[in-house]
Structure formats: C-alpha cells, structure tokens
C-alpha cells in the first residue's frame, strides 16, 4: 500500500514525522473529527490501510495542509494518490456516486457536467458559439479515458 501510494503520486510520503500540522489546518477535521489526515498517513505508512483508504474521499482539496507542512510531505497529494488507486481498482472501490457520474459523463460528452435545461436556446440568445465535441473527438476522449475504467464502469457507460 505504502509503495503503491508513493508510486502513484505521493513520492514524499515517508518524510512524515506525524507533527499534526496538516490535521491542525484541515478544513474538514475542524468539523468532523473522523477525518484526520495525519492519522490516515500514519495508517498508510505502517498499517494495512485497505479499510481506511476510502476516507481519502473526505478531503476537501483546499491545500492548506500542503501549504503548512514542514516536511514537504504534500499531504493533499497523498489523498489524491489514494483516490487514484481506488479509481484504478476493478471495480472502482468506494468511489462517490457523483464522481462516478462525472466520469461517465466525460466519457459520453467530454464534460463532467450535463447541460442545464434550455441551454442550447440560451446560448443562442447570448450569441455564444458551439462548444460540443464532435463524434471523432469523442472517440479520442473515450480511447484515452476508458482504459482506466474497470469492466463494471465500462458497462455503466455503455448502458446509459
């Protein structure tokens, strides 16, 4: 687990001295003590993290921890690395539904958000140009994106 995290975007993970500055500056911890980035990092370093790794989805990505960390651990990147591992696993583990929907949306339209109702007309009124991807562009996007999807997710994409 530790080595995979290091590999996937958290190369400074082992520099942590557990000083607690990250947790002290954490936007989420202030309101919810169950999300404790320092503790999570310790678990990643020395424990079998498999049960706790989904907690990485609780991070708000505000980046204050990384800004204040005295050891250049880049705690936010540790959480993002953990998320990346979860997304890669087949099936994607414990991925929040809204993120799953976004991924599916990207593979279908190129964008993470669907159109708000009446968008086409509104854009015309506002004299805004077309921004949709054409068929070949969408193909390109799917080719780049979908190899990272597991079977289940691929199926979900095709279903909808």
């Amino acid at each position, binding site marked *: 687990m530790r080595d995979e995290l290091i590999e996937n975007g958290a190369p400074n993970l082992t520099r942590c001295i557990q000083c*607690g500055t990250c*947790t*002290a500056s954490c936007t989420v911890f202030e309101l919810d003590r169950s999300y404790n980035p320092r*503790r999570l990092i310790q678990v990643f370093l020395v424990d079998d993290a498999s049960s706790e790794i989904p907690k990485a989805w609780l991070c708000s990505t505000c980046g204050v921890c990384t800004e204040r960390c005295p050891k250049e651990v880049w705690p936010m990147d540790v959480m993002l690395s953990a998320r990346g591992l979860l997304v890669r696993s087949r099936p994607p583990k414990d991925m929040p539904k809204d993120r799953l929907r976004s991924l599916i949306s990207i593979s279908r339209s190129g964008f993470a958000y669907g159109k708000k109702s009446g968008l086409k007309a509104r854009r015309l009124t506002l004299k805004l140009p077309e921004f949709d991807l054409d068929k070949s562009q969408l193909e390109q996007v799917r080719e780049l994106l979908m190899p990272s999807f597991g079977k289940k997710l691929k199926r979900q994409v095709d279903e909808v």
Partner: protein
Amino acid sequence: MPVTDEHARIGVFVCHCGKNIAGTIDCDVVADYAKGLEGVVFSSHNLYTCSEAGQTELKKAIADHRLNRVVVASCSPKMHETTFRLCVADAGLNPFLMEMANIREHNSWVHSADPKGATRKAMDQVKMAVSKASLLRPLQPIRVPITKRALVLGGGVSGMTAALNIAESGHEVILVEKKASLGGMASLLDKTFPKVDCTSCQLQDLVNKVTSNPRIKVLTLSEVKEVSGFVGNFNAKILRRSTYVSELCTGCGLCLDACPVTIPDEVLGSMRVRKPISLVSSPQAPAPSCSGRSAWDRSTVHTSSMPVGSRVAVIDKEDCTSCGICARRCPMRAIELDHPSVEENHEVGAIVVAIGFELFDPCKKPEYGHSKLVDVVTSLELERMLSPLGPTHGNVARPSNGEVPGSVAFVQCVGCRDDKSNPYCGRICCLITLKQVILLKEKYPDLDITVFYIDVRTGGKEYEKLYAEAQRLGCRFIRGRPSSVEGGDGDRLIVRSEDTLTGNSLAESFDLVVLAIGMNAPEDSKIVSAMLKVPIDPYGFLMEAHIKLKPAETVVDGVMLAGSCSGPMDIPSSVSRGHASASKVISLFSKDEIELDPIVSHVDLSLCKGCLACTKACPFQAVRPIEVAGGKRVEVLASLCKGCGTCVAGCPYGALDQYHFSDEQLYAQIDAALETDPTDKIISFNCNWCSYAGADFAGVLRLQYPPNVHIIRVMCSGRVSSKMILRAFEKGAGMVLVAPCHPADCHYISGNAWAKKRIEQARNLMSRREINPERLRFVYVSAAEGNVYQRAIIEMTRLLERMKRGEVSWGVEKVLQEART
C-alpha cells in the same frame, strides 16, 4: 647532494617481518636480485628492519658502504615511513632520500597462495623503488616563522573564552567585536539552563577577566575588513568605528534624554523603541555584576541602575540624524559627531572565528502572526521581559495592554525542522522553553502554560530534569504542531492544533503566545567565509575541517572555529569549542617555526605560458598568477601548497612538477614495472589517503588477489595526468587502474574530480589510438574498502585473461609489438 653529480650508491634492505613477508616471499632471492640492479651497491635482508637491531644494521650499512640512497622493502610506508626517514636522517642522510617498497600489505599478505608470483612481484617492486630512489632529491622542510599573536573575531562567550585561554598561555590576543560592548547573545539572557541560574554574574566575570587581561586588546565597534597571508603570517585590516564620544564622557546620560530620534529595536522586535545613543558598560571600567548593561540591549530605561562612573555613551551613526542636540547638551563637550573611523593593520599568526548566531525572523512564518498580532512574541522577547534589567523590569506583561497574562502558549520549532525555512533542529529551543516555563511558574504560580511541540528534545547533562520539573509545575504539553495563531476571541489569541496523542481538535485561546524560534547562521558568515576562504554549509554555518574529529579547525590552516557560528549549540558547547580552538592556537604557537611538508609543486618559468589552467585546479589558492617581464606566469606559494599535484597533472606545457613525486620519478616507476611481461600487468595509481590505504586494508584482511598488479603511490588521484596513463599503455601495460577517493572525500577537496576529467581525456586519446578504452578503469576506493579493491583487481585480471585468449580486443597490435621488442 643531487645524485646526478655522482654515482648513485643505493642500499636495498629486504625485510622478513618475521614470517609476515618471509612466509610467502623468498627474501634471499629478492635481496640477491637487487644486487644486480643499476645503482645498487649493497643489498641485504633481515628479520625486522624496523627494530632497534634492524635500524642499527641499516645505519651501519649507510656508513660502511657510503650509501647515498636507501630502499626498504617491507611494510606499508603508512606504517613505517616516518620511522625509516628518521633512521636515515640519524645516519646523516636527508630523510627524503629513502623510498619504500610495500611487499607486505601489497604483496605477501595478499598473494600468500602464490609464493612464486609473490616473489617475482617483490623483485619488480624493488626494481620500481630503486629506479625512483636514483632520482630522489634531498628536500628541506619549508620553514615559516610564526607571529605569536591571535586574532579573535567576536566578543561573545566562545570568543572571550578562546581569547582568555590564549592570553593566559602567554600570547597576545586582539579581540574584535562588532557591537559597542562584549557579551554576545548570552548577555540578553536572564537565566540559563540547566541550573536556571543568573547569566550576567557568570558572563560579567568573563568580561571582567577579558578586559583586565593585559595581553588582550579589546576592539569594540570594530570589524575585520580584509585578511591576507597564510598560517603564522596573517595580516588583518581592521576598521574601528568611532563611538563619537571621547574619554571625557562621565556617563551622565543627558545626551540620551535630549536625543529626539527613536527607532524600533531590531533585535528585540515589536516591543520597544530605542535611540541612536545608548549607555553601555565602559570597557575600561566595567560595571559590577547585575548592573552590567550590554550594548546588545539598548534600553532607554533602567540606566539609573548603573553607577555613573562605569558607563559611557555610544552613538550609532547608522540611525543618527546628526542634528547635534546631544553635542550641545553635553556638559563635558565629549561628543564629536565628525570623529572619523580608523583603519588599523595587525599582524597575527592565527585567527579564531567566533561570530555567533542570529535568531530566525518569525515574520517568515506569517501563519503564526508575529507581525500582525502584538501579543505574539518570540522567546527572546519573553526572555527580556523576564529579566529584571529588561524593559518591563522583570514583569511579564501582555504587550497589548500591559497586564499580566492569565494563559500562555509556547509554539515550538518555529523556523526549525521546517523544509520551508530551516530543516535542522534548533537544539536549544526546547530547553529554553522549559527554562522559561519554570521561571514563569516561579513568578506566577497560577499562570496557565501550554507547550505545543513535535518532540521534546533534552539531549545534555541534567537537561531531562527540566522537562520533569515543568510537568510537575503543571505545565500542559500538547503534541501537535499548530497550524496557525490567529486573533478572534475578543482580544485573545487562538492557537489551532491537533492533539496528535488523543486525536482531539484544539482551537484554544491564550493571552500571550511565545514562538520558540531557532538559531540561524549570522548574516556576516558569508562575508567572513569569502574573506578567509572557509567554506559555509547550505544554511550559512561555517564548516569545520571534519565534523566529528576536527571541530575546532577549518580547512584553512591557522583559522579556527569557536561557538555557534558553526551550528546551533548550547552555552557549554560554545565554551568547550572556545577552549578547543584556543588549544589549537596555543599548540601552533608552541613552535618557533612551522614546518611544512616539502612535497610541494614548483614551476619552471621558462616553460610556463601563463594559460592559468593550474590556478583553476588549486582549491587552496597556492598557485597564483603573477606578472613578469614576458607577460603572465604563475607562482606556487609553497607555504599554502598541500602537495596534491593536481595542478601539475593539468599543465599542458609540463611547466609544473612536484617534489618527491615528480614526473620523472613516476615515469621511472611505470617503466620499471613494465620492463618485463608488460601485457600481463595492471598499473594501479592509488592515492595516499584512500585507495593506497584501502589496498593496505585488503592486506590487513588478507584478501587475496592476483599478483600482476603494481601500485604506484601518489598523494592524490589528481596527480595522474592523461599523459601518464598513455605512457603506461605505450609501455605495453595490460590494464591501468586509477583509484581515487569517493567524490566527497578527497583530502584535497577536488583532486578526484579533476582525476575523473583526465580519465575521460585519456579514454578519448586511447580510442583515437585504437587502444581498447576498457583497459582503463576508474574505481572509487575508500580507506576501508579493501574488498572493493580486491574485486576490482580480480575483475580486471579476468578481463586481461580474456584479452590474452583473444576474446576481447586489445587495440592496436603494433603498440604491443613495439613494447615487446
């Protein structure tokens, strides 16, 4: 006498070393063989040449046979070179006319399975030594006089300790201090750990001893601007700033009252202002203890505590507007605002650098709010509050409203253990905090104190007790580095942290927050480093010659280090190092002359073209450009030259050479080694400090390797030029090995880096001449890596075998044939 004027009369002495050598090598045969070598008039073998009996025999032989050169074939020169040099000197020969052949560590101990091969190699080794011996010249050590006066930079605890020690041993000292009085940063402290006792008593004692010692000349408000020369013979240019106040000053203080200028105090930060005029303890008549005022703390209050006769006014022109009001006010007309600064030259023999430290600027950590929130103070500011001589008369008060705080928080590791400012640990900040906690609790038993820490570090005698005492007194310890100190709870401060041991989230309010800031290198360290050529580390601290074994010296001979300018440390360590640096100075001054090793380089001006390539290769500034009638040339300053030979190897015109390791001598060894069966042989250039010792160590460990390698000793791998390497191949060498120190370990700093460059040049030349570049190897070997050397030789021998079998190409056949005929 140069041997060219007369015939060489070389004596060869082959040692048995009990069974150590004789057990493998047939010493009789070797001694016999030696008889037939050119220049050898006497040859013998004996049991223990280094013993009294052996040495007596040696000396007798020198006399009986009128020997003028001696070869001792025995152990490693690193063992007995000095012994035999002294021995031949005793017999009337110049000690540098003796050469050793290492037939123990480099032969009998490592080739014990092959007595025949070992004996053959020993014969070759003797031949090599004999050919060098016939070219040896007598050398006299370079003697330079010593000026027995020391210069100490810095009048803090370590500087004063060093100065006092040197003076008490009978030598003059010039003590230069930038500020207006002595004492350094310690004079700002109220009490010190571990005993939590009063600093000023102890410090004043030291100041008194220094100022009353007739051998110490104290120059305050002075700075060393330039230093030239070398060990024993430095010239220092010192700028003496005027105080603008003459000796007529009685210390009445009227000028201070009249001065209209106020400036925020830079050392003590947010708390107070000061004026360009201050009253300080008179260096001539120091005030009694506890009323001593340091120019380091130019408080505008509390001057009444000093007896009038013991203080003088001092004006700092940097902030002074020259309005002249003080001069008009002075009843003694003692103020002269246009009094010039003076430059003085002093000749000294040794320099002690004791320029101290500075504190971390807390504004660099804006999240802790020191610049925005007035109730956030540094540990030094708290110290000044605690001191009865300080601005608040010893009362700890909130700067915002002057009231005694009900709760105090300490934030540790500010500007320490922090990759964004200083990654190192401040070493004393935990102890300062513990001490301050104890002092606070003494004064204010009901005060709530909390310490936010990452670790509590109490390394030192009696230090752990302070932690226990602070806990016993009820101080709260929270393991969690705060992320910020903010305003917000009325006029109180909020410290946000996690208690990492319970997992609780904390956002607690305090009346006063103290930032435990770390020790930084002083700004001046860069200037001093450039001035004295002493290297500084990435954090600005001056570097010792060896971090473990030579803490009091630097790589520059004659320049010593004392105190916290070399790194964060407590007062006992500073004092220790003051003593240590003094002892190095005293030991230097105990001789009348300094004897320097004569194995230095020298230049033939008729060959020098002034390209100055050599000046770039010398890290000791021993080779310098000079102007002569014909244009630019170079000169070698023998007293600075360390004898590595790196400059020699880089001279494209052969204008430089090295005594005792001359090109001629080294070539003679190469030629002698390759006279027979050259293609079977590996020529190995080993540097005196690392790889030669490493090969010795292989011998000590009895690591076995084939006897076809001949080691040629050089002082530094930088001595090896591409030309030398090519010569070995021209003479038919099978392979050549250059074995330098590991990159950071070179005894001469950069010699091994130059060696690397020259190896590459050699490989290019080899390719052009179609010699297989694989025949040249470059292997880092440290003094402890006997096994690395052994493996390298074994591997190279295997490759040699494959070449002999035709599996790998030699290169140009023609070269070999020429060599064989």
